[in-house]
């Protein structure tokens, strides 16, 4: 039972990251590796702030903004300095590793006994004791749903339309008299803001920051996006954002299942990678997505 709960908790948290990856990979057609750095950055910022006694709720908007700034930098490297998309992300990912160590001050920063958005006096009073075990998963669900609907709303605005247009056909964006580079930067910023927010939640759920916790984030996000987008292609019932969330949950479930049937926990990243490969092979739409726009 606790295994299923933890799959849902982490799945919901990672789903927010996957929504960010969805923006870059599916909408902008930009395989953004920055997420491997911006995800743990959210955790690092959160660990430091919570240890300083900052209200845990306040860490959410702070991480969101910090992630937005990181996304802008990736965008500037790609658009203004004309570095290829994949390389721009790898540069940021590598640089952020050290930045995260600087933020946290050390490679592992726990905050087990501090209040978080999942564990605080207010919540303890609010939730009856029989619900206590489900507290974290309920809060994760609420936050993920809010983020999903906010993203849906943004995608229906004029600005969101431009974002969809730039990934689809950037010539049209130029024809509309809009700087396509700027639109890309906005998209990357929003995506990394979501990823960093997800890192912030993950740290609060785990109770620590670890410098290596970002490894494989991009792969996980892509897996969630691709599972969601291909499994629910036929269903018009779900919006794409909802399928991404479900895709992420399924993926987390598969990884957990592999551990549960006896794979050692140290094989987690290998399972993550191999599962992703299997999904890529099983879904056919990867072919057209391989073309990289520099």
């Amino acid at each position, binding site marked *: 039972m606790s295994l299923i709960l933890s799959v849902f908790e982490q799945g919901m948290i990672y789903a927010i990251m996957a929504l960010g990856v969805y923006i870059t990979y599916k909408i902008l057609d930009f395989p953004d590796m920055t997420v491997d750095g911006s995800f743990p950055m959210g955790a690092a910022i959160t660990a430091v702030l919570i240890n300083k006694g900052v209200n845990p709720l306040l860490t959410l908007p702070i991480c969101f903004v910090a992630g937005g700034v990181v996304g802008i930098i990736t965008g500037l490297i790609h658009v203004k300095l004309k570095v290829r998309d994949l390389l721009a992300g790898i540069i940021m990912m590598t640089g952020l590793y050290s930045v995260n160590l600087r933020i946290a001050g050390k490679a592992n920063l726990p905050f087990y006994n501090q209040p978080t958005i999942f564990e605080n006096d207010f919540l303890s009073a609010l939730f009856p004791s029989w619900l206590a075990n489900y507290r974290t998963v309920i809060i994760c669900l609420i936050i993920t749903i809010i983020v999903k609907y906010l993203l849906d709303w943004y995608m*229906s605005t*004029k600005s969101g*339309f431009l974002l*969809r*247009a730039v990934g689809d056909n950037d010539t*049209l964006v*130029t*024809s*509309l008299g809009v700087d396509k580079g700027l639109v890309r930067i906005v998209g990357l910023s929003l995506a990394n803001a979501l990823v960093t927010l997800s890192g912030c939640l993950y740290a609060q759920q785990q109770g620590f920051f670890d410098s290596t916790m970002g490894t494989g984030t991009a792969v996980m996000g892509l897996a969630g996006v691709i599972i969601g987008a291909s499994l629910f292609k036929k269903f018009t019932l779900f919006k794409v954002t909802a399928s991404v969330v479900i895709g992420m949950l399924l993926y987390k479930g598969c990884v957990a299942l592999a551990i549960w049937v006896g794979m050692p926990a140290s094989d987690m990243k290998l399972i993550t990678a191999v599962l992703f490969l299997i999904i890529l092979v099983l879904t056919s739409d990867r072919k057209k997505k391989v073309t990289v726009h520099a």
Partner: protein
Amino acid sequence: MLELNHIHKYYNPGTVNQMCLFEDFSLRIEDGDFVSVVGSNGSGKTSMLNIICGSIDVDSGNILVNGEDITNKKDFLRHRKIGRVFQDPSKGTCPTMTIMENMSIAENKGKPFNLGRGVKKDKMEYFQSLLRPLNLGLEDKMHTKVGALSGGQRQALALLMSTMTPIEFLILDEHTAALDPKTAEIIMGLTDQIVREKKVTTIMVTHNLRYAVEYGNRLIMMHEGNAILDKSGTDKQNINADEIMRVFNKISIECGN
């Protein structure tokens, strides 16, 4: 008025593959002109459009619009006054967005793309009234993704979208070349109607000599980066396709092909 003054453009400058495209090329287009441009492949027609639109830079020379030098102006800024339709029908529309959504973003050109609603339902009638005269049935497919439409339907939509907002120039880059003859006729008729209604200065590159003769009030033939034939006014009215074909054949023979 659009002026290209002493344009020089080389491809691969400084290498053995250096190729001269334009050498001291000048052209003047008056307000309200509808210019048809013909010429063989590689004669510089599309490059000229790209230079006007800012898609490629020039090595020297300048581009003036109503006296204002726009040579170093960024492409997207120039497009605020330019409507452009490409040969490839997919370049003028967004395939994953619906007709309604595509027309909504086109209609918002020149206005800020802020957090306001992307689709305004009250515009539906207006958009449908624009689509109805095309007789392509697009007005009943407002919520269909454009990627599901045929090339001709997309091109018609692209043409409408590029002229929905006030523009000074309409740039047509072989916009009927990828279409079947019947659809090409429809698109050409629509083009002529839009140009007349909006009185927009138009430059149309085409490989169809008949269109070049039939439409517009000026005809230019490009060859090796020069306008070797430039007819306007009554000269243009009296010209026929055979005559152009003769000039065309002559230059082709000189080139050895």
